[in-house]
Structure formats: structure tokens, C-alpha cells
């Protein structure tokens, strides 16, 4: 069943069409890797899915609901689409545990005890149970990003959106985050990932999309299109990334 449907979707910033009539359908269980040069619209495409950017034309359906709907509908969509940011964005005044328990308590209305039990499970899942009572400032970038993934999972989303989740990390810390993401993919989580990690795209991705000037220029099997780019500019782009 398709969970995300872009229908001739436009996003303008002023006169600039950052998404220029995108058509794209993502099925449940897919791991879609979005790549493309800076300014190609890949982050905007991701941020339109949970309405952090509002579309300016066409339609975009997430789990049966249009992102162009009212605030209540948008909040419903956001509860089905967990997001992980490049800069982690953990709440600095809360411990790792409280960060993860925050969503269930404030969004889902879970009790404190209930939320904490679940949060501990999620922290264990990302390998950070022992850091439950640490504040974000006491964690490495990789650890913070794993807490951020646990926090996004805590609201039990149907799809996970990753916006360059390893771009702010030192090379030796990227792997621990990618491993957690790989685990999620293996459990069958639907994922949309903006990244420059081509090895991850090949090993974990089920679909690769190369964006350019607000269009989808290439859409195919990651191994095939990365090894033999069907498009001159994509070949160029890959040379710069690797």
C-alpha cells in the first residue's frame, strides 16, 4: 500500500520552484534514498512530507491524509512520520530518557511510568540504555543522533524521515548511526533518507532517487543506478561525493 504520494507537488520560495511538479509514490516497507546536489530540493521534498514546509501547489498524501489540510490533520500526519534532523535537535534541558519519553507523554498522552518504560526499551534498541540519565551535552554526536532516532520512534510512526542524519558527524561516529538505521530497515520500517552515504544507499536502500532543480531526474535500484548512472549529471555528482 502506498504511504506517501506526491501528486504534481510544487513548493515555491518566492519565485523559485524548489519542488517543480514532483510525482512520486512510496510504498510501505520501502527504503528510499534521496540524493542530489545542494539546492536540488531533496531536503525540501523530505520536509514537505511532514509539513515542516507547506506545499504551494499540487497535492501530497501521507497515510491517506493531505498535508494541505488543517492543523489537526497536519499533526496527525506528523505523528505517523518521525523525523531525524542533521543537527539532532535534542531538547538540551532533558535527559536522554526524558527526550525519548517526551513525545509519548505530550503527544500521545501516555503516563510518565508507561512512557519511561517504553523509552528505556528504545534506548536499549539504539544501544544507549546506560546513557538514559545523561544530558545531551554529555553525549557524543553519534550518541545524540541515536537518542534522536529513539525519540522519533517513540511516537510509533509508520514512516521515518532522515534529513542528512550523519552529515554533522565525524567519520568514526557515522557508522554507529548508520547501523541503527540499517536495523530499522531490516525490521521493515518505511524510510526516506536524504544522505551522501553511497555505501549505505547501496546496502540498505531499496530505491534511489537523484534530484535536480526540483525534479526527480533518476529513480531506480540503488546498486544499478549508482554503479552505472543513467544520467551524466548524476555521474558527475557521484564523482564529487565519493
Amino acid at each position, binding site marked *: 500500500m502506498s504511504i506517501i504520494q506526491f501528486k504534481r507537488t510544487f513548493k515555491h520560495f518566492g519565485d523559485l520552484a524548489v519542488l517543480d511538479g514532483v510525482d512520486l509514490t512510496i510504498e510501505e516497507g520501502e527504503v528510499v534514498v534521496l540524493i542530489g546536489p545542494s539546492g536540488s530540493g531533496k531536503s525540501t521534498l523530505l520536509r514537505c512530507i511532514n509539513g515542516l514546509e507547506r506545499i504551494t501547489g499540487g497535492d501530497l498524501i501521507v497515510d491517506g491524509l493531505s498535508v494541505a489540510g488543517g492543523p489537526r490533520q497536519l499533526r496527525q500526519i506528523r505523528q505517523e512520520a518521525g523525523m531525524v534532523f542533521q543537527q539532532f535537535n535534542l531538547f538540551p534541558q532533558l535527559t536522554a530518557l526524558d527526550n525519548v519519553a517526551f513525545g509519548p507523554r505530550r503527544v500521545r498522552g501516555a503516563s510518565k511510568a508507561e512512557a519511561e518504560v517504553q523509552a528505556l526499551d528504545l534506548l536499549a534498541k539504539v544501544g544507549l540504555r546506560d546513557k538514559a540519565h545523561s544530558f545531551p551535552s554529555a553525549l557524543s554526536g553519534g550518541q545524540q543522533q541515536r537518542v*534522536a532516532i529513539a525519540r522519533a520512534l517513540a511516537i510509533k510512526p509508520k514512516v521515518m524521515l532522515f534529513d542528512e542524519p550523519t552529515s554533522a558527524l565525524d567519520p568514526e561516529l557515522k557508522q554507529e548511526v548508520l547501523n541503527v538505521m540499517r536495523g530499522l530497515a531490516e525490521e521493515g520500517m518505511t524510510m526516506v533518507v536524504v544522505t551522501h552515504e553511497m555505501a549505505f544507499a547501496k546496502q540498505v536502500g531499496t530505491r534511489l532517487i537523484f534530484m535536480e532543480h526540483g525534479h526527480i531526474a533518476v529513480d531506480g535500484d540503488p546498486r544499478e543506478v549508482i554503479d552505472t548512472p543513467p544520467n551524466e549529471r548524476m555521474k558527475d555528482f557521484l564523482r564529487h561525493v565519493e
Partner: protein
Amino acid sequence: MTTDWSIVLDFLPQLLAGAKVTLIIALLGIAGGSVLGVVAGLMRAFGGTLLNGIAFAYVEVIRGTPIVVQVMFLYFALPVLAGLRIDPMGAAILAIVLNAGAYIAEIVRGAVLSINKGLTEAGLAMGLPYWKVLLHIVGPLAFRRLIPPLGNQFIVSLKDTSLFIVIGVGELTRTGQEIMSANFRAVEIWTAVAVLYLLMTGSLTLLLRVMEKRMRIL
């Protein structure tokens, strides 16, 4: 003329009564000013054109005029303009509310806007309504950043009460002035007045220090 510190003791009850009036004006003024300042600051930060415009005009008018002029206006001009008669104490408190409110509005606006936008996005992305993001995420973080500049403003407001000598409120400075004009003991009386102010501002500083320590400023 030799100094005679024992006369301070004679006038202490009178000076303490003045200090009490100062404290009442300051505390009520600061409390009201904080409420007004938070509202105006949030209007500045998040209000649409209209709300932002109203708050902006208020802040500019207050910041651009001396507090002595403001209290004179409240006490002498308002009765003429609106037929509204306020007693000196009421005018004094209202002046501090309005004056502190304007400065606190700017403090609140600055603190709220200094919180990383990414945190707001993280909250929204979970499906929280905007007001809950402000209440549970931005608010607590901004509050920590508010404390140091807010403490500064509280001390300024407390000392500003001395300017209400011009409308005849019996606060500490006015009390000192009255004693002085009867016995000309300038050194003793003004020293005592200064020490009483220091005790009040010192307690305020201490209170804020404790608050800062108990809360990690992030």
C-alpha cells in the same frame, strides 16, 4: 559639624517605613511589569502585524521617555485628560509596571528568539501543536536565559522608585529627604538610606543567584 551615627537609630523606624513603601512599590510593580512584559514580549515575537505593532509602539514610547515624565503624566496629566484620579502610591506602582514591562518585553523577546529553531521543529515534527512547543520546549529554555537580564531589570526598577520623590510618595528617598531638611544630618541620613537600598538590592541579587544555581543555564 561632627558626625553622630547614633541619630540614625532615632530615625530608623521612619527610614524602615520608607523602605517598606519602596519595597511595596517595587514588588507590585515588578510583578505587574513581569506579566505585562511577558505578554508584550510574546506579542513582539509571535504576534501578527497588529499585535506586534501594538507591542512595538508601547515599548518605544516607554523606552523613549524618562520614567519621571511617565509618572508625572500618570499623576498630573491623566486626571486632566481622562478625569481619572490616581493616588501617588497607585501612580508609582503603575509607573513601574509600565516601565519595567517595556524593558522586560524586550528581554523576553530576545530570550525566546535566541532558542534554536531546530528545537521548535523537532517539537512540531512530533505532532505537537505550536503552543505546546512553546510551553514545554521553548519556554523552559528561554526562562533560564531570562534570569540574568531580568535580575538586572528588577534592581533597576527597585532603584527607580526613588524618582517618585517628585510626586510625593513616602518611599525611602523621600523619607531621607524629609528627615534631612529638618536636621541637616546629611552624612548620617544619606549613608543610612544608601545602606538600606544596598540591603534590598543585595537580597534581590542573592535570590537570583540561588535561582541561577538551581537551574542550569543552557
